[in-house]
């Protein structure tokens, strides 16, 4: 039982870290540029497609991933320069409308270019297997890799944002972009770079989730809502908040699915418990978000200066 509990915790952690990869880019772009980018999910999808194509082309998942990241960043930069740059000063809803248009475009675009059937990302065989984390607990190698990459990425982002000059400028830009410009920093370029970074993170999330969830048209649409939930719970613009919220959501959602039926079964009759547990576990994330927002209307870690 304890082993199962631990295994389910790992499952939750892994889902949470995958969500974090997606949410980090979103919160960076939202928090710093004040841009609601619904097309973040499309960049996630395109990143996954890039990885699938490049993996097929090079025959190696890691080479494919290595190519997909700059491709994702480049695509993001193109989108930013062509469509989104003019929208920074606009109302959030204008941004919603425009990026909604981009979602429609990218979904059809992917269908035209990559076909309707979806793609699989082939993993090297050692990643298809399991690693024995503890005696009696084999864990899928690739999921373990997700945990490693997720934690690594969180560390990288922490160092980048907290310890480098670029990170200082990013944070400064988040609180007062006009002043950053008046001190001699090309804010347009900075924003384009940040958007590229966010897109690369989205692509990373896409290519890490591709091998377990397959690469499909519209794969970014539903998960985008989850990522929005994460950044709202965490507090807009806060990488730390996004990390904590993502892991919390991953773990709570997984634990709910894993143990709610049994828990409810102990004081309800089985069929009622089943129905209730299913309904509850579907709603759990939303209940969590509603509760957090009722208690803390600006999320757990509201960024200062906003």
């Amino acid at each position: 039982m304890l082993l199962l509990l631990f295994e389910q915790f790992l499952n939750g952690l892994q889902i949470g870290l995958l969500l974090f990869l997606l949410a980090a880019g979103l919160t960076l772009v939202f928090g710093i540029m004040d841009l609601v980018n619904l097309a973040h999910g499309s960049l996630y999808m395109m990143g996954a497609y890039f990885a699938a194509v490049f993996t097929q082309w090079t025959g190696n998942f890691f080479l494919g991933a290595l190519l997909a990241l700059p491709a994702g960043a480049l695509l993001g930069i193109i989108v930013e320069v062509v469509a989104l740059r003019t929208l920074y000063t606009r109302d959030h809803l204008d941004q919603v409308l425009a990026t909604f248009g981009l979602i429609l475009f990218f979904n059809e675009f992917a269908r035209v270019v990559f076909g309707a059937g979806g793609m699989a990302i082939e993993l090297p065989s050692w990643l298809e297997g399991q690693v024995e984390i503890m005696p009696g607990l084999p864990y899928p190698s690739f999921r373990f890799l997700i945990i490693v990459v997720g934690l690594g990425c969180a560390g990288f982002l922490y160092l980048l944002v907290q310890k480098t000059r670029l990170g200082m400028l990013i944070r400064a830009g988040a609180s007062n972009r006009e002043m950053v410009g008046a001190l001699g920093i090309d804010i347009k370029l900075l924003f384009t770079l940040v958007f590229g970074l966010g897109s690369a993170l989205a692509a990373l999330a896409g290519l890490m989730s591709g091998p377990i969830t397959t690469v499909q048209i519209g794969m970014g649409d539903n998960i985008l809502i989850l990522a929005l939930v994460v950044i709202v719970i965490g507090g807009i613009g806060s990488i730390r908040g996004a990390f904590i919220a993502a892991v919390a959501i991953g773990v709570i959602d997984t634990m709910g699915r894993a143990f709610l039926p049994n828990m409810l079964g102990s004081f309800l009759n089985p069929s009622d418990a089943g129905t209730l547990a299913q309904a509850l576990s579907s709603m759990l994330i939303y209940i969590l978000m509603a509760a957090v927002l009722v208690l803390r209307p600006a999320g757990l870690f509201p960024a200062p200066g906003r």
Partner: protein
Amino acid sequence: MPALMHKPVTTMIAVALLGLLALVPIAAEAFDDPFMLTLFTRIVIMAIAAVSLNLILGYGGMVSFGHAAYIGIGGYTVGILAHHGVHAAWIQWPLALLMSGLTALLIGLLSLRTKGIFFIMITLALAQLVYYLGNGAYAYGGDDGLTILKRSDFGGLIDLNHRPTLYYLCWAVLVAALYLCYRTVNSRFGMVLQGAKSNDRRMATIGFPVFRYRLTAFVIAGMVCGLAGVLSAAFTDFISPAMMHWSRSGDLIVMVVLGGMGSLFGPLFGTVAFLLLEEILSSWTEYWKIVFGPILVLVVIFARGGIDGALMRGQANILMAGCAGFFLLYGVHSAYESDWLIPTAILAAAFALVWLAKWLADRRASAKEAGHV
């Protein structure tokens, strides 16, 4: 009448549009095209929902990302009652309004303390709960939905099975919703609402209970939208959780923003443009979204404030050019399908529009010259 007076162009076009909408059943009869009536019934119902959303979104600054939930609540109330053999509209309709009002009250109580994106997301979360409730309601079909075998019964007064009757009922509700919105916005209540949108703290210090005002508006909007749900149930004879999915709420926001939020007729323009474009583009190609998506982006970039904004600022030339481009595509497309008369007429119309757009642009340019020198 401040909200109407300063933009007569919009009002004229909107009244003309409402008039045209009133003629739809006659046109459908004349052209022997009953589908036209079906299409426009859906458009009118969605327009009611969009108008209700605009009341809180456009005027109150409350971006509800869960507005489709009320369509669902209204529809489900009717559907569930019908499922249990209660068909009397006198019971169904008020109860549906009550239910959607209560839901709005609950959602509003929980969400109105938050602002901005947080408000957007909490309304989404609460609407998702309603969605999953519908999904899990196996007694009423779960995600398969529920077929309504018999439409609401007005005791012989109004026959909802008669399609033009149903259409005119929807049309009347739309006009009533617009009127309600107009009256609300221009009342003291509406002024406070709009004042709170730009600066809620000031309104609060002046002594207005902003929260209560907002909650009231939220509930009114929910009830009007619930009515749209009731009409939708009557029109489609079918309810399913799909009508409450978050993407439907997103569509509603898109319609309002496309048309121009915070303008009385914006949502009407937006809904008509959105659904007509969808219908027409999708009849040309399965890849229609590859055209539709960029159109939305272009509208945002070039027509600030949506269609209504463009009209108001006298950017009629941009709209005209847009329409002309559309007609041009339409003409070329239909040239492959029907004989010469129709495409020629369409292309001639496109030509006329381009000319008109140019004329308007020139006039605007010369007016600008005159004004600045």
